[in-house]
């Protein structure tokens, strides 16, 4: 494989990884802080993409559509949390699985009722169409570069917030020992609602960013959900840093696995990776809990 090909594939892997990071960051904090398995996380990805598509068709402005879609996904998440989910935290993981499984079905069917069963358009904004020459002789689609940059920006922002602000400190405290954090005066309930909303918004952002590359239709949330769960678990539940590294690892290994190995093995690669990592470190790479 030539150097330019390796560079391009590396970029592809990192871009996939950053997309997964957007999804996994919300998931890991929610799982870590409230021990809540949210299978419906993929639905926010889908909702973000659909809202952006409709807004774009209506206004023609990609940036505006993106902002509204992200806010929309966040609001849906927030309402869901306040209205229903916060009442079921006390129940077992299995009940969470049951409830969020039901939510997947409901969201998919509602999306179908609103937007129909056929895929809807979400085109690449004209400004970002085409390719750019990143190194002599190597071109890469501009939009994918944009995804990379957005993903990195969000990761940096999250890092700054989590490690260098007081609220970030509360989040880390809550993720590692909720009862204790509550005992020392952190408003766990509020923090959790906001976290859930933010996680949903990030998932929506991932959906809007992926929309121009992939289809936007009912059911796109579930495949990405599985990958996000893999990333969350590999990275260690409750850890943003873990999710980031795991996402990059999964993205790069999946990409190179697909092109270097026959399809059967290529599809299995990330599951093999997860099995190996969990066999050696059963709590993931950087578990938040001691």
């Amino acid at each position, binding site marked *: 494989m030539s150097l330019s090909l390796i560079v391009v594939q590396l970029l592809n892997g990192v871009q996939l990884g950053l997309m997964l990071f957007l999804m996994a960051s919300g998931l890991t904090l929610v799982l870590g802080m409230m021990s809540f398995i949210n299978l419906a996380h993929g639905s926010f990805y889908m909702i973000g993409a659909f809202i952006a598509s409709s807004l774009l068709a209506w206004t023609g402005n990609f940036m505006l559509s993106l902002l509204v879609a992200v806010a929309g996904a966040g609001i849906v998440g927030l309402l869901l949390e306040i209205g229903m989910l916060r009442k079921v935290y006390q129940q077992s993981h299995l009940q969470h699985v049951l409830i969020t499984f039901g939510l997947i079905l409901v969201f998919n069917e509602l999306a179908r009722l609103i937007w129909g069963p056929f895929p809807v358009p979400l085109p690449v904004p004209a400004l970002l169409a085409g390719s750019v020459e990143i190194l002599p002789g190597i071109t890469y*689609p501009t*939009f994918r570069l944009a995804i990379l940059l957005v993903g990195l920006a969000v990761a940096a922002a999250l890092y700054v917030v989590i490690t260098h602000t007081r609220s970030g400190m509360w989040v880390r405290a809550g993720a590692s020992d909720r009862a204790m954090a509550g005992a020392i005066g952190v408003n766990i309930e509020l923090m959790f609602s906001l976290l859930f909303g933010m996680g949903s918004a990030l998932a929506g952002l991932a959906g809007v960013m992926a929309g121009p590359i992939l289809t936007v*239709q009912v059911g796109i949330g579930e495949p990405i959900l599985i990958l996000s769960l893999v990333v969350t678990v590999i990275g260690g539940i409750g850890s943003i840093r873990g999710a980031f590294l795991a996402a990059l690892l999964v993205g790069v290994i999946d990409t190179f696995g697909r092109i270097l190995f026959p*399809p059967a093995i290529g*599809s299995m690669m990330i599951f093999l990776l997860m099995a190996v990592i969990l066999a050696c470190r059963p709590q993931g790479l950087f578990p938040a809990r001691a």
Partner: protein
Amino acid sequence: MRLSTCIRRFQAAGSAALLAALALIATGNGSRAQDRELKIGIIGPFSGTAAGAAQQVLDGLLLGVDAADGKVGGLKTTVIREDDQLKPDVGLQAANKLIERDKVDVIVGPHYSHVMNAAYRTMVDSKIIVLSAVAGPSLIAGKQCSPYFFATSFQNDEAFEVLGLYLNEKGYKRAYLMAPNYPAGKDNMTGFKRTFKGGIAGEVYTGLSQLDFAAEIAQIKSANPDVVTIFYPSTFGINFHKQYGQSGLLKELPLYSAFSLEEIALPAIGDVAVGTYQAATWNFDNPGEVNKKFVADFTKKYNYRPTFISAYAYDAAQLLHAALLEVKGNLADKPALIAAIEKASFTSVRDKFKFNTNHFPIQDYILLEVVKTDEGKLIQVTRGTMQRDYSNVYVNDCKMPKP
């Protein structure tokens, strides 16, 4: 009222509801169709991600029934819909329900090969006429052919054999192939390699859950092909065309495909699809009268222009209509009905239509190109005929038994 009592009563009510549901299901027995009635069952993935395709087939079928004024073959027609959820065991159950409870005479579908394979034997062993508007697995075209099965669609390999022949004519020497890693994908590429005389620069099969082909597309250029041929149905096709277009490769490497792109998906793919080519057996701009009427009626009724699977489903209805008229609505005499269907004495939206001995169509293959109209709409226009009266290789494996 205390919560626990409330819950307990809810549980009691829930269990009672369960038993009531059982009773309801138990009594949901269909009646045998009266002599002057026709029941058509349609099995498709109506829920879930493939719902669009199932809808298109249903719309085509219903329009075909409308065209016969609701009386296919002169018999009052009911269409009963069953969801197979893209799961083979659910598809089999749906077939059993249609056969045993609803007592249908004809089944259209299932549309996806693996679900069709699960339900096939049950349907033909029950002597139900099966009209497939989409699925055409090679085993059913060959060794396991049955007189009760008719396909109005195509057999998987054909389109790619035709493309191979066509690309030979155009002088292409190195082809790069991509398809999903499942039997239909493999069959299609095998078909292509059967006829294409040039070299294969690369042959890549992608995983079934894979939707982002950026990595594979990046590999294409280094293999130095002069043409790219792919097969990616429905969602995969949309994704592939989008990503291929975005990579900029289309300027240097033409993209040919079959059954991977349809007009209804063009808005979702966008302008990057312009200039790609597809092999097909039907397009909206086919000149025949029957087709013009079909497209006009369909667009008026459903607000979108029909795709090829809607066209095949419409043909299935028309085929049945003509055959039933010929046997004067006698559903009981299956051999006579089968013989009438074999004659295919109806005018298809493809104009010409004949069945081969394995009950798959012998039809023309045309070349389509995606263009942008002056109004900015993306459509596929017919560029020419690639092969006339084409049929598939599996016909030799089929020793058609008597009904």
